[in-house]
């Protein structure tokens, strides 16, 4: 014991130092890891909140910009469902205006289609095929009729096929041209049922 006595102080100090290091290291390590995890979590949430805020500010700017370009009433019009019967009457009206005779048409049932847009994501639309035939006296009447359909029908009308064939004897004023055509009609779609659901 007498041999150890002079060394008790520094041995104790050494043991304390080693213990301090041995105990503090894992505790501080754990606390540091937890604090880092918390910091990462807070930063992630902060980043997300900032993004939401920026998005909101962008939305406000977008609303202000869009409001100058399109009014709410116009927006309602652009998004309104189509009335297929009204479309049929528009086609008939257009045929009458361009002096077509024996005008027949078929608007095929709607097919739902999704079109990706950069500003509003995927758009759910309706695609219908329109086949029509008519007799005309002049080819220009036919051209006016096709152009009229483009302008009059709601949505977008694309001509897929057009056949103009001479079938008469060429008597002036008589309808000696036969038109058959196929169009693709992209629209908002009609109301599905009588209850008014789109």
């Amino acid at each position: 014991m007498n041999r150890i006595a002079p060394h008790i102080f520094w041995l104790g100090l050494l043991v304390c130092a080693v213990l301090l290091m041995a105990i503090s290291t894992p505790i501080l390590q754990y606390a540091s890891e937890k604090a880092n995890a918390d910091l990462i979590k807070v930063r992630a949430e902060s980043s997300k909140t900032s993004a939401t805020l920026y998005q909101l500010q962008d939305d406000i700017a977008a609303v202000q910009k869009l409001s100058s370009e399109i009014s709410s009433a116009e927006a309602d019009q652009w998004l309104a469902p189509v009335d297929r019967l009204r479309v049929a009457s528009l086609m008939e009206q257009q045929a009458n205006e361009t002096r077509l005779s024996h005008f027949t048409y078929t608007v095929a049932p709607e097919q739902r289609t999704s079109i990706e847009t950069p500003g509003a994501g995927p758009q759910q639309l309706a695609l219908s095929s329109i086949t029509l035939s008519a007799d005309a006296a002049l080819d220009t009447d036919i051209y006016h009729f096709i152009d009229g359909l483009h302008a009059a029908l709601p949505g977008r009308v694309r001509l897929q096929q057009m056949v103009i064939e001479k079938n008469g004897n060429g008597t002036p004023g008589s309808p000696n041209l036969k038109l058959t055509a196929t169009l693709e009609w992209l629209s908002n779609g009609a109301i599905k049922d009588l209850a008014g659901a789109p």
Partner: protein
Amino acid sequence: MAIPPEVSSPVLYMFGNPTLRPQFILMIGDDGAFVVPHGIKPTVEPFFVAHDDEKNVGIATALFNKHPKAQVTLFADMLAQDFRREALPRLNPLDRPKLINRRLQQAFPHARLRASFNLKSSRAHILMAGLHEKSPLFDWMERLRHRLPRICLLPVEGAEIVMRILPDAREGWAMMLSRERTGGFRQIVTHQGELIFTRLTPPLPATAKAPEIAEAVQRDITASLGYLARLGLADTSKLRVTLLAPDDMQDELGEMRLPVHSLTLLSPHKVAKHLRLPFVPYGNDAFADLVFAGHLALKRCPRLSLMTPAIREAYWHSQIKKIGQHVAALVLIIALGSVGFKGSDLMLTLLATHKETAQLDGLHKKLAETQAEAAPLTEPLGKLRQAYERQRLFAEPTPTPWPALTILNHALGDDARLTKLTWQNDSGKPNAEVLQIEARLANLAPADSERESVMGEFQRLTQNVASMMPDYAVTLSRAPFPATPQEPVTNETQKGATLITAELTIRKKTP
């Protein structure tokens, strides 16, 4: 006192190695002890203490106690020390210490302290030293026991002075004779730089005159020469002798007739200055104590250091304690540093988290306020965006036949009339446009037409259309008459075939 005032000034003490720790060197002889402080502040001059002078012993002890951290070295210059050179056989490292201990025991059976060291000149030889029990040195050792003094032997350390004064002594035999206050005349004989023989003769009275001293010195050297023959010095003319004597005695000493190689006379003053020792005796000082003390003071490790077992144990305890304290302090500093470093890192992280949390709270608050303010505005945003996209989508231009038909009309001119027109673009892409026309020649009666001429007209028409419509590939897809080997050729009029027509296919070129 041998130290002149100017020599003991701090300036001259600067000759000493300032990096060495403060120390007291006690040169202990049979007549007394010479206390030489080195590096002690304030500077204390060396002083002589007779062994039986209680008053001065008390003064010396008080001085030691005043500087408790100064190292104490007992520098033995007594008669009661023996040396012997021994040859050892080649042994392994474990057996060699055992053999040395046995030889020491045999050589100095009555010595209180024994030690040995390897000779630099020969690994096979050791120099053994023994200190006898009855020596005033041990009284001082007991008195200073708590200071853990080390014991050095003057002949062993002084052998190096011989080499420094006489460089030729490294190769051959050399002797240095000096006079010390504490003992008497000390002879140190070296061979190839190592101590081989030492001898202490009693001092002469203080009143001894130079001739008397010269006679005593000559007698001592002559006596030693006879003994050195036994140690291997067969020819004394190879021995170089140096006498440390004051200048005023050198005439008498120079007249000595000795059968040696050379006799060099140097004063202790000159030697101390030459060796740049921290202590420089008077110019006419006859004693060389300070030369030996100064030489030892400059050495970081003495050649041989002796300790009693108890003091050695205490010394090792103190060394272990000192090293242990340093290690413990270092580990504690590292531990505290580590804790501090990691703790500061943690604190920085916590502070950053706190700051980020505060910023997040601010963002949440701002978001809530903005949401509340913008709710009426942004609510229709989705609808507006959708309507805007719908408007853009519906307004996209679609391929129409009009541009192609306009060009075709110009290309046909008055030369031909269409009987059938088919325009097709299934995919809606601009380059998917296909036009098929059936045409007849405007000024051609079917009855009188020559087939070759009609065919040529249609070919010309086709080329004309192709040249007018460079963005389209124009081909005559059906000739007006049978033109391929698979078609029948006849002059009968076909039923219903009133017009001669050909078919052209006009296809948009892919860029």
